[in-house]
């Protein structure tokens, strides 16, 4: 089985590599200190098994699981079984190993993974974005004038009290409305609310860091709860 290791601690990765090397059927193809790096890798490479640490700063194991498009088999590694309970609701979680991991327990987990078969149903992404019908434009009321805005030209919508600021390629518009109202008009295939005050056009993203995106010249914070959805959507680009 081709496998990868995801753990922010080097010691944990070294231990897992040592354990994997003692099992002939396992072939470690990569190791990652952050789950975000692993998502990029998994967009291009198929693996059979992931050893995944649940408790990691910023983007943790559960965020990672929720962002997977075609989940392979996963064995969780954790210091605290409480963290594994939530993850076990997903069908592709084979086992969890409590740190420090003993070889005999590791071997049992690998044997379970070898016998474990993921059905196409289980391998489906956890959440599917709901598509809205796409209109290419809509009108906003500014100073009693109805102004047409081309949807794909919008790169950012920002909440500003009782107003929203719509930023487009050519011009910015300040409109008396709410983020919730405009969110209903924007197609899910292009736009994503990444923070309680911001909706972005995901096609306009230039750069992403752990907690923020660069879009045009604006650096926009990403809420922790929105990060898995953002990571999942990026693969569509």
């Amino acid at each position, binding site marked *: 089985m081709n496998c990868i290791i995801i753990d*922010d*601690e*080097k*010691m*944990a990765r*070294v*231990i897992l590599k*040592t*354990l994997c090397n*003692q099992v002939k059927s396992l072939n470690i193809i990569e190791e990652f200190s952050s789950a975000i790096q692993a998502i990029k890798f998994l967009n291009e490479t198929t693996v059979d098994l992931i050893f995944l640490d649940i*408790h990691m*700063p910023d983007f943790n194991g559960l965020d990672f699981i929720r962002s997977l498009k075609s989940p392979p088999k996963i064995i969780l590694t954790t*210091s*605290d079984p409480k963290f594994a309970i939530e993850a076990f609701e997903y069908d592709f979680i084979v086992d969890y190993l409590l*740190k*420090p991991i*003993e*070889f005999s327990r590791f071997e049992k987990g690998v044997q379970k993974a070898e016998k474990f078969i993921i059905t196409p149903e289980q391998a489906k992404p956890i959440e599917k974005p709901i598509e809205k019908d796409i209109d290419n434009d809509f009108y906003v009321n500014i100073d009693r004038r109805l102004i047409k805005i081309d949807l794909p030209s919008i790169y950012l919508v920002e909440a500003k009290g009782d107003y929203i600021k719509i930023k487009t390629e050519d011009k910015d518009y300040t409109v008396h409305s709410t983020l919730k109202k405009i969110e209903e008009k924007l197609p899910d295939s292009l736009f994503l609310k990444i923070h309680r005050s911001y909706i972005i056009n995901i096609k306009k993203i230039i750069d992403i860091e752990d907690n923020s995106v660069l879009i045009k010249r604006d650096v926009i914070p990403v809420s922790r709860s929105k990060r898995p959805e953002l990571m999942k959507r990026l693969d569509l680009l």
Partner: protein
Amino acid sequence: MEQPNLDYVEQLANGEESIRATLIEVIKTEFPEERKDYDESVKNKEFKKIEENVHRLKHKISILGLEKSYKMANDFEHNLREHSTEGIEDFEKILLVISAFLKTI
């Protein structure tokens, strides 16, 4: 006070000297870094960061066979979630014991 040991490391290395050396090297490198991060987060009173650093150090505590200390660290980590530093003195004693032990290996 409970003393650290290398039983887990020896068991994992299974007689392979190079594996044993690698594991010890990683502990000796990573522990002081994690401790520094921990001290920094305590200094800045950042509970979330302290909790994360305690969680990482907890793994080293368990690797070094410190079972009672691991339980204390676990309790401390849970207290931090409630923004309480109860158990901090005991936890820092554990770190001192480990630092002293790492100088001997």
